[in-house]
């Protein structure tokens, strides 16, 4: 992709950042607004139910959109090689986190003793960051010289897997 193609850099960075931020906003419940469909009112940030259920989905999307737009804007000003490096890092980190946390949960389930630390996200997150840093450092120079949008689907796919995992209780009740 052309180094001068700022629109493409913005678009690819937006996709990667928005997928990651949407997952974070959903799991930590960080909506920019709350919609109350029964009374048709909108509140800023998170608010509890009022006269019926509250909807946070629009707020999560808006939070992710604002954050991703800011990151994409910064990326469009940064050197292309840095952006590609950051996207490669985020993609590998997302995949590594997914594998590490899934393995942790499997080990937690199978272990005969209580290993509470395996339920925490932090060890998996630290391991994922370390793996991603190592992978990006070892990548051939040519891989992160130019921005390549082919990486971009990896983070949304990882995000969807994590979001899907948190819905498992609906299917096991």
């Amino acid at each position, binding site marked *: 992709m052309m180094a001068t193609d700022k629109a493409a850099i*913005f678009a*690819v960075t937006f996709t990667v950042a928005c997928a990651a931020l949407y997952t974070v906003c959903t799991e930590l419940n960080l909506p920019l607004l709350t919609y109350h469909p029964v009374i048709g009112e909108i509140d800023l940030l998170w608010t509890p139910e009022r006269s019926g259920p509250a909807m946070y989905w629009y707020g999560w999307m808006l939070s992710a959109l604002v954050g991703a737009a800011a990151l994409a804007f910064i990326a469009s000003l940064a050197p292309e090689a840095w952006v590609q490096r950051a996207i490669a890092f985020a993609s590998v980190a997302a995949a590594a986190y997914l594998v590490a946390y899934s393995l942790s949960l499997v080990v937690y389930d199978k272990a005969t003793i209580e290993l509470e630390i395996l339920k925490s996200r932090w060890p998996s997150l630290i391991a994922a960051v370390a793996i991603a840093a190592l992978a990006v450092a070892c990548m051939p120079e040519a891989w992160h010289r130019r921005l390549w949008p082919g990486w971009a689907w990896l983070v949304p796919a990882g995000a*969807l897997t994590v979001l899907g995992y948190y819905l498992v209780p609906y299917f096991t009740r």
Partner: protein
Amino acid sequence: MVLWTTLLVIHSLLAVALLGAITHQAVALWWPVRAPSGSFVTRYRAVPSASYVWAVIVLYVVTFVMGAWIYTHYRYTARLALEQLRFFKVVGSFELKEHVATIGLILLPAYWAAWRNPRSADEAAARRQMTLALALVVWANFLIGHVVNNARGFGS
């Protein structure tokens, strides 16, 4: 009720159009025609895939906006009934559809970027991957939506 049912039908029709467009594009991209032939399958594969990009983007956005609008009504009518009936798998499927649809929307900018230069050989792999990812999202959402809608049935 008539308004919501009408919107749901339009949403479904738009989804069918989107499904057709993205499937056509993905097939043409992943299974290109090497030699011309008169068969239906070959003609199906021989379409110029670049011409579908804006149709896919516009159809996705319009279908998404319509779905997000209908969702407000679903949230305080159908969903409450499904929860009372303990149809948790259906509720969970709809939650999944909500996330899959959002991820599809998020994929659109990168999909567009991959198709910026449709003749560029350097980005051919990126185009194939982004198109396939979006096609899988659209298919998943279509199937989930179809199954979930059948839980209570049209007009129930």
